[in-house]
């Protein structure tokens, strides 16, 4: 039977479809030419296993004794397979190993890319959650200062003469709190929360206007001024929380599967 030229891509093993008969070492000749290269390469193609074929089957061949500088290249390799009697070689085909070899390069790259994308998504999400928590902490700090201002103001305007602190002390304490409040508001503004809802001018006026005359004013006048302050303070706090909600809307689950939760 005549030898048949087989062309296959140079990899570590190839399969040759043999119709029938057997493929043995003597029937396979060393590689006679390699792709575009003209010089002969010191290689040998041998079957991985000896097989006697009664039905069409695949025989694995492998290339051995490869020159080191070519071992990692894809080369078109030709060889000859001399079948023994009653053997015909149908065709040569690219083996699954070839596909596997291609995929073995592509899959890690795709996998690595997916990992990088995944990590980036996780990082951005974590950063968003941390920013939201920090902003909420600032808002809570501001509300705490508002509460302290309320406490000072209520005590000043409603106390009797004996329990009331001096007006200059009151102004000193209020001014200190307002300076702290101003700096917190500036930080909050940098976090894209609209702080124009906080009216420090009005708050300052209601807290301290005519505080030097508190003992000369009637209780009714003092209560009225305090009421204006408390109203303004509550409005400022509510508006601040609204602005925070606008910036960071709460998220709820769309579907409630838990019946108890529904009830």
């Amino acid at each position, binding site marked *: 039977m005549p030898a048949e030229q087989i062309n296959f891509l140079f990899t570590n093993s190839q399969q040759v479809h043999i119709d029938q008969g057997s493929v043995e070492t003597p029937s396979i000749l060393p590689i006679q030419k390699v792709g575009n290269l003209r010089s002969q390469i010191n290689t040998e193609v041998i079957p991985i296993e000896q097989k006697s074929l009664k039905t069409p089957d695949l025989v694995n061949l492998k290339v051995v004794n490869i020159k080191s500088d070519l071992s990692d290249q894809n080369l078109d390799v030709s060889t000859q397979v001399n079948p023994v009697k009653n053997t015909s070689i149908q065709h040569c085909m690219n083996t699954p190993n070839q596909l596997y070899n291609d995929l073995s390069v592509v899959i890690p790259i795709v996998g690595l890319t997916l990992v990088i994308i995944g990590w980036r998504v996780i990082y951005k999400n974590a950063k968003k959650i941390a920013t939201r928590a920090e902003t909420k902490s600032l808002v809570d700090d501001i509300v705490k200062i508002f509460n302290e201002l309320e406490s000072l103001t209520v005590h000043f305007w409603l106390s009797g003469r004996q329990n009331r602190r001096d007006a200059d002390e009151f102004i000193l304490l209020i001014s200190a709190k307002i300076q702290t409040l*101003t700096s917190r508001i500036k930080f909050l503004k940098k976090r894209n929360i609209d702080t124009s809802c906080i009216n420090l*001018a009005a708050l300052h006026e209601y807290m301290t206007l005519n505080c030097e005359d508190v003992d000369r004013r009637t209780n009714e006048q003092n209560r009225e001024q305090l009421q204006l302050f408390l109203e303004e303070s509550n409005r400022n706090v509510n508006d601040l929380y609204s602005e925070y909600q606008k910036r960071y809307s709460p998220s709820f689950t769309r579907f409630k599967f838990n019946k108890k939760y529904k009830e």
Partner: protein
Amino acid sequence: MIVIDVANDFSRTPFGRYRTDGENSAERFRVDILEPKIEKNNIHEDFRIDFSKVALGVGSSFLEEVFGGLVRDGYSKKDLLKHITVVDKTEFYDQQVKHFIEVACQQNK
């Protein structure tokens, strides 16, 4: 631009509305410091009243007496709003002063 540094030119601890409230009152600042400077330089010049070096802050009564008092002393609201700027650490005194000038003007009518 004529700058009046309240801390250096008047007091680091201004307090009170009238002279009876203390020696660093709003009435003394307006009558003895601010109005003479306005008269000397003409109200059509720009004035900057700087509270930023004052210790902590001043009460609303002080601001109302200084700037509302200017309206009550006959200065025009238009000139005051146009030529007077107030500067401080908290950045809301200017807004408060403009409000006091408006209110004093309405009360004067």
